């Protein structure tokens, strides 16, 4: 500590510069973390807030687009309901549509078709729940941000179907970045099939559903799939089947990994340059009998002080910025856990970078201290 603190005070300009770089990286980390969590919320909060434990899709449907591709006969619901451990099984319909309200507000919706008496029926926070009328819809709390409220009538562009907004849910319910709208299964089936007013509706339309939503703790999914001819995913696995989810989260993870690497390299490069500049004095100290461990420890303490202070400042600024961003409609949510982990990683990898750099250079020959002629 003796030398470490005095060296930092002496080279405070350089340390401040380096500290700002680390702080900026920390800010970026916090914002990225907020964006990750926000995107996850935006992508799958509609699924997270459903009580279903798993979904049974069409057999062998492509895993990353199951919600949009899958179409099965509702008889699978009864098969699933009979499986061991299944408390309830209910038909579930999922479709992304474009709509426009009677106030000319454009809104994209993820329509969740459900049966009113099933466990999927939503609880509203404002207005009324679904009463059974075919043209009712209940929207995510976030729809208000789009300017849609109870009493509005939404026209589905694809079919011209008209939906009355009767209630609003308590929290954010979004799926694939658009607001979720719960509506009666029959209405959903008509919209999905593209039925327009006055069309003759074939019977099979009212048999089509996206998936069977299953509720039950110890369900043998493989056995159920075999009996019902479906392909199941747990609700967590099904996040990957929501539009863009996998691509977004893996991109953000990649960016985070790069940030860690950058921070380790930048801190390593800084300590390389710093230590190379200190070479003459290091060789003097070695001649005077300082152990390698002493010199390395000294640099590690320096890098720890640098990283910890800079990360603290950066995270602080990041949280302040995040609070501002969080109040906008941007998909952004700050959670302590991911930020703490990211900060720990940042500091740890920075330390690794510094240590690798310093250990290499500190081995300078103490002989070079003798005589200016060498």
């Amino acid at each position: 500590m003796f030398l470490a603190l005095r060296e930092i005070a002496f080279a405070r300009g350089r340390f401040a510069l380096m500290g700002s770089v680390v702080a900026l990286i920390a800010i970026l980390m916090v914002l990225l973390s907020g964006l990750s969590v926000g995107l996850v919320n935006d992508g799958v909060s509609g699924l997270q807030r459903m009580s279903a434990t798993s979904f049974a899709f069409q057999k062998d449907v492509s895993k990353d687009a199951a919600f949009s591709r899958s179409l099965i006969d509702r008889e699978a619901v009864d098969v699933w309901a009979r499986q061991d451990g299944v408390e309830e099984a209910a038909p579930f319909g999922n479709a992304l549509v474009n709509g426009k309200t009677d106030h000319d507000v454009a809104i994209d919706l993820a329509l969740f078709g459900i049966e009113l008496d099933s466990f999927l029926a939503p609880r509203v926070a404002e207005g009324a729940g679904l009463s059974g009328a075919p043209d009712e819809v209940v929207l995510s709390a976030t729809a208000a941000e789009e300017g849609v409220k109870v009493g509005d009538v939404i026209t589905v562009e694809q079919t011209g179907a008209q939906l009355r907004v009767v209630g609003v849910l308590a929290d954010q319910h979004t799926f694939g970045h658009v607001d979720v709208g719960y509506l009666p299964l029959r209405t959903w089936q008509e919209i999905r099939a593209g039925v327009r007013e006055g069309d003759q509706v074939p019977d099979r339309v009212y048999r089509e559903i996206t998936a069977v939503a299953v509720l039950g703790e110890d369900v043998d999914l493989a056995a159920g799939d075999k009996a019902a001819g479906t392909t199941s995913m747990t609700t967590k696995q099904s996040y990957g089947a929501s539009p863009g989810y996998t691509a977004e989260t893996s991109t953000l993870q990649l960016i985070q990994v790069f940030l860690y690497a950058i921070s380790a390299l930048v801190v390593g490069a800084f300590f390389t340059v710093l230590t190379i500049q200190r070479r003459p004095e290091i060789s003097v100290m070695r001649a005077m009998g300082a152990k390698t461990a002493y010199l390395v420890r000294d640099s590690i303490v320096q890098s720890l002080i640098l990283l910890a202070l800079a990360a603290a400042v950066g995270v602080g600024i990041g949280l302040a910025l995040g609070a501002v961003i969080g109040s906008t409609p941007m998909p952004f949510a700050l959670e302590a856990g991911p930020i703490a982990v990211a900060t720990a990683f940042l500091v740890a990898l920075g330390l690794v970078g510094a240590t690798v750099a310093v250990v290499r250079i500190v081995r300078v020959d103490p002989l070079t201290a003798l005589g200016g002629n060498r």
Partner: protein
Amino acid sequence: MTEPALVLEEVSLVHGDGDESITALDHVDLAVAPGEVVAIVGPSGAGKSSLLAVAGALIAPTSGAVTLGGTALAGLNRARLTELRRTRIGFVFQTSNLIPALTAIDQLRLPLTFGKAEAPRDPQELLEAVGMAHKAKRRPDQLSGGERQRIGIARALVTRPSVLLVDEPTAALDRQRSQDVVALLARETRAHGVATIMVTHDHDVLHHCDRVHEMIDGKLGVPAPR
């Protein structure tokens, strides 16, 4: 004469090997007693710094024996040699080589942070002894060459070494300051019973020394009477 603090017997040092090899030290014999100042003079490249490096456990001789306070250096591992340098040997370098970040008083405290010293001298008192107490808070870049060299000497003495190895301490100093610095070295050496070897080009400071050896082509000559 008391028991010598430092003995070199038949010490040779060869740099490189084969045709390229350079004999820096050629069968050197030297013993230095506590309280004695031995000067080494000689042309550039004669092997003077090499002698200090070998005596100071910075480099192992190719052949011959170095004995420090009764301990033979041959066969000691790196950690033991580092320990010996820290506790028994003091170095004063040509350009003082102080640590830029440290104030004068901290330069003296630094060696004491490397490990436990048996009977360290008080940095403040030592700074007074070398006449630098009034500039205790100055950093090297705010000090003159002579002042830096005084602090360099004090730094080498703070762990109370038995051997002091000094390489051209006056190379960067004018006449008067050279006299002052070498006088200081001689005074401290005698007052504290240190065995000092000083390499120098400066013949005007030799009268402070007890013996003067000339070194030519790695060979140490017999002491010239002063």
